[in-house]
């Protein structure tokens, strides 16, 4: 559980910065930040499961 929380904190910090820096309007910033946040979480979970099945 702690691993997931740390990954969520990392995704949140990165999403805030990416969302704020990347777009021009507030709506686009929020949407892009949410998209980046979700991408970090989903890709992190997928990679976690892939690595789980590797024997080394």
């Amino acid at each position: 559980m702690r691993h997931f929380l740390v990954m969520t904190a990392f995704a949140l910090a990165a999403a805030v910065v990416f969302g704020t820096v990347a777009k021009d309007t507030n709506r686009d910033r929020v949407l892009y930040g949410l998209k980046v946040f979700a991408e970090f979480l989903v890709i992190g979970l997928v990679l976690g499961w892939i690595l789980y099945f590797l024997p080394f």
Partner: protein
Amino acid sequence: MTRVDNDSEEKAPARAWALGTAGWFVPGLGHLLQGRFVRGLLLGGAVWICFIAGLWMGGHLFTVGANEQGTSVLLQVPPMIANLGSGLLYVGAWFLGIGFADDPVHAARATYEYGTTFLLIAGLLNYLCMLDAFDISAGRKS
């Protein structure tokens, strides 16, 4: 073939360089000095939280010291550049001797790798914030 119009290129004003430097040295300051308070608090807050969380988790700050021999010194340079992005936070930690310990006791902590990653990310995110403050001051961004 596209013709490049050199006349349209504008040099960035000295103020932009100063604010960019301020933003690097104190995360968020480059935006706060331009009156972008929400932006400054969001960006600076993310960097400060990342850095403090990294130290709290027992992360390691990189430096090029005398312990490494030969070409292994070069391996320390890229992460040190990432850490240097934190500006005053890195310098302050260096003065206080926090986060630079390189011993098995620190490395054995369960959150050591997480902390090190958070410290690296704090610096890299602050480079983005610094460039954002520079671009806003130079009029390249709204």
